[in-house]
């Protein structure tokens, strides 16, 4: 079974790539993109979720989907405010609105 551990980790990273891809595609669909710092903050949240201990696969998937929904809301907000970019402040505002997200993927709301 020792062989499987790195394989599973690789799979998680592939799925994480998928979620990142979805986030960017969703933002593009709404006609906006990410500022560099916002995308770094988002990916940091995603990675924090992935690296959390004692979290089941179901919880992890739920959390990643919640983050994708957060991106969708942030994209709508940015678009409605006439912004071309999702800024970290928009991301944080929406995150506060969507609380409670799982506490282990973000600082407390």
């Amino acid at each position, binding site marked *: 079974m020792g062989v499987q551990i790195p394989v599973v980790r690789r*799979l998680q990273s592939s799925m994480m790539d998928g979620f990142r891809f979805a986030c960017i595609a969703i933002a593009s669909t709404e006609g906006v993109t990410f500022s560099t710092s916002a995308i770094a903050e988002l990916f940091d949240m995603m990675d924090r979720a992935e690296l959390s201990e004692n979290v089941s696969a179901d919880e992890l998937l739920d959390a990643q*989907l919640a983050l994708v929904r957060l991106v969708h809301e942030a994209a709508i907000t940015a678009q*409605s405010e*006439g912004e071309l970019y999702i800024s970290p402040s928009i991301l944080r505002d929406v995150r506060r609105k969507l609380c409670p997200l799982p506490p282990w993927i973000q600082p407390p709301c």
Partner: protein
Amino acid sequence: MTSVSERRIKAFEYAAESIKQLIAIATGLIAFTVTFSKDFVSAVGGPLKWVAAIGWLFLLGSVCFGLLALQALAGQMDQTAENATPDGDETAWAAPSIWSSAVGLLWKLQQGSFALGLLTTIIFGGISIAKHGFAPVEKAGLVSFTPPADTQAASVVASRPPGTTAQAHDSLVGRFAGCYRFTLVGGSVYRIELLRSAMGAAREARAMVKGPPIPTAGNRWRWVPIDARHFVVSWGGIDGAMELAVERGGRGYLAMTTFWSSNQGTTDHSAARVEKIDCRSRPS
């Protein structure tokens, strides 16, 4: 000791990379379509919902088969441990191959499942668009009232004129919903789509104005039907507000525009020409 050739190692790396890419795309597709499911899946009938669900199942299956295929690849590298001699002679090891039955089967299942999932999703999208058209999205030059996250009957009730029943209000909403071209004094033209759905605490939605000069800060657009002949479209920003009171007459529509400027402290009234247009038409 028999080492695995570099070429074979490369084959394993490429196979794993290919599997991982398919997993990433399948995961992304699931996340993308699930996010927009409220807009698309909720708007379609029962049987069509199953098509979407089947598509997700295939894509999920593709991810799972991908996982198993990766594990099978890892197993290939170590499959002959039992054949090694007790003194560690590994000459008895069989050459690992990405074309072994287990890896090949799982890989094909992953690809097949992905293809079916993609096909099903495309079929769902095609049927959905054919039946219901595109979801209301902002088009160039079109101020679009964003559809709601979900039906909020309470907010519709909250915004309807006093004395109007919810059914009557919904009927009026259906009567006026659609796309309109507003030509203001000075020649400014706005294409505005009135949607049937409510959002937020009032019957409103926010949109980015792509049209001619109008204060852009904090755009908030809303519309509300008054009676069988009148409806009001309003825009509010940080430094100004505008209201278009529209009357439907025998020959078409007329509108009175009121524009408030908080910067200049002025209120201007003017007439506007209104035409109902096809939402799919291009800006002229």
